[in-house]
């Protein structure tokens, strides 16, 4: 039908042409809000988004992160070349210093070996199963999320390198975070200082357990769920408890910076922890790709499972070698102990 024959059409056309820009704006915003809403819905605990990543995210990350990998690799090549072949000032003095350190550590190692042996015996006695880091993969930090609202960064290892969601990320100084999302060539690491991060921890001296939360600040973590009647001294070490299923037990987390009664959440303490790892200057990290769980083996010569009586017996004066029947009876008791 010609436009002139439809009395409503000219006004409708003029409406659309007049408000074309505003209508397009509203249309685009509507589409984006629908997408936003669908994403928020995904975060519903009844339908967790764990493992689901938007296609546009995969495309963008795969487009940008290879360039970051090239930049980082090139930068490291020149830096390593400079450090390895040109900038060797002080290397000799440093070598001598390190050799002295090695000698000192060897002496210390001999002392600690004895302590470890005793701890192993006691753990075997109590049937503790210990989780330990069995395998790690070194990764380069190639980019941040570039935002002040969150604490996360990208590493140059992805699905092809065996990365998976939930793997712990550490440095020799302490824990860093966990892998949040995995792409083909890169992974997104959620740092422990992020609001959404958490870890089960133990205070090293007092042996109190708590839950560590990120505060969004790069140099501060919050430790919750510890009663106000406990005494927590600044400087006390905080280590992982292993109870969160992410971080193996005993990894360094940080040190207590201060502890005051929590006015908003009595009767608990408000404890702040300074991270052990330098989270603002990360270049290389270790991803824990395998955590093994096993009962610690008793030290060599202890004959497998050891009873408390056996440990006590070891502390008693040694039984003379000639007293063989008695020694034989003791051995039989150990082997027939109920398991």
């Amino acid at each position, binding site marked *: 039908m010609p436009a002139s024959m439809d009395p409503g059409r000219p006004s409708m056309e003029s409406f659309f042409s007049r408000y074309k820009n505003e209508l397009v704006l509203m249309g685009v915003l509507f589409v984006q809000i629908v997408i*936003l809403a669908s994403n928020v819905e995904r975060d519903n605990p009844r339908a967790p988004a764990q493992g689901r990543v938007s296609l*546009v995210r995969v495309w963008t*990350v795969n487009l940008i992160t290879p360039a*970051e990998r090239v930049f980082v690799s090139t930068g490291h090549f020149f830096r390593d070349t400079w450090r390895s072949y040109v900038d060797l000032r002080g290397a000799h003095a440093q070598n001598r210093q390190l050799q002295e350190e090695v000698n000192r550590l060897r002496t210390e190692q001999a002392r600690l070996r004895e302590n470890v042996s005793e701890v192993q015996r006691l753990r075997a006695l109590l049937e503790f199963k210990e989780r330990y880091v069995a395998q790690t993969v070194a990764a380069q930090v190639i980019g941040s*999320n570039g935002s*002040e*609202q969150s604490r996360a960064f990208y590493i140059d290892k992805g699905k092809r390198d065996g990365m998976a969601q939930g793997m712990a990320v550490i440095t020799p100084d302490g824990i860093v975070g966990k892998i949040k999302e995995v792409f083909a060539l890169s992974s997104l690491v959620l740092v422990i200082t992020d*609001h959404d991060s958490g870890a089960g921890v133990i205070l090293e001296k007092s042996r109190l357990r708590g839950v560590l939360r990120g505060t969004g600040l790069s140099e501060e973590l919050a430790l919750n769920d510890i009663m106000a009647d406990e005494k927590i001294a600044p400087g006390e070490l905080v280590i992982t408890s292993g109870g969160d299923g992410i971080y193996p037990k005993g990894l360094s987390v940080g040190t207590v910076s201060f502890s005051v009664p929590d006015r908003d959440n009595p009767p608990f303490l408000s404890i702040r922890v300074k991270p052990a790892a330098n989270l603002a200057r990360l270049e290389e990290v270790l991803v824990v790709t395998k955590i093994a769980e096993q009962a610690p083996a008793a030290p060599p010569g202890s004959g497998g499972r050891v009873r408390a009586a056996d440990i006590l017996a070891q502390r008693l004066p040694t039984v003379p070698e000639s007293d063989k029947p008695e020694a034989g009876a003791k051995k039989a008791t150990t082997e027939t102990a109920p398991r």
Partner: protein
Amino acid sequence: MSLTVSYTSREEIEVHKFNWAVSVGIPLLALFLQSFLPQKRFKFMEIFDLPLLVTIFFAVSRRRPIPGLLTGAIIGTLQDALVGGRYELKGILNLNGIAKTVIGYLASSVGVKLDVDNPGSRFLMTSGFYLLHQFIYTVIDLKLVVIGAHTLPGFGHILLAALCNGLLAVAVFAGLDRFKLRS
């Protein structure tokens, strides 16, 4: 004696075009730098919002609302996809997308009415748009999404960031002016 001041000269309402490689490459470069630099000993770069500056530049240069808002929508969505904010960690898109769509629309509208080639007006315009962007982002964050408790940056920090982005815009826009194709 009367003095007449015109704020819409022929030069000011001139619509600029860009090579397709520039239209695609500059936003991607901004996204790359926004992601790459803060991690590499340039932590202070977090205060800048390079994708926002690029959105404003293209919007005021093209001076057409629909391309302006679409530029903001695409850049913002890609920023959410790559760098986002705290919600990108949960797979939530479009906080930046929505905010930059509005900014792209308004910037292109402003580009028709004001002299946006002057460094002073560029500084004021970008600082103002940064504040508006943060306002929109925060309103959506708090009123529409509302997931978990989190710390919002203080107003003083946002004001400082607005001034910093305004200053950077003067330099960046001057550099990007070279890519304009005059119609």
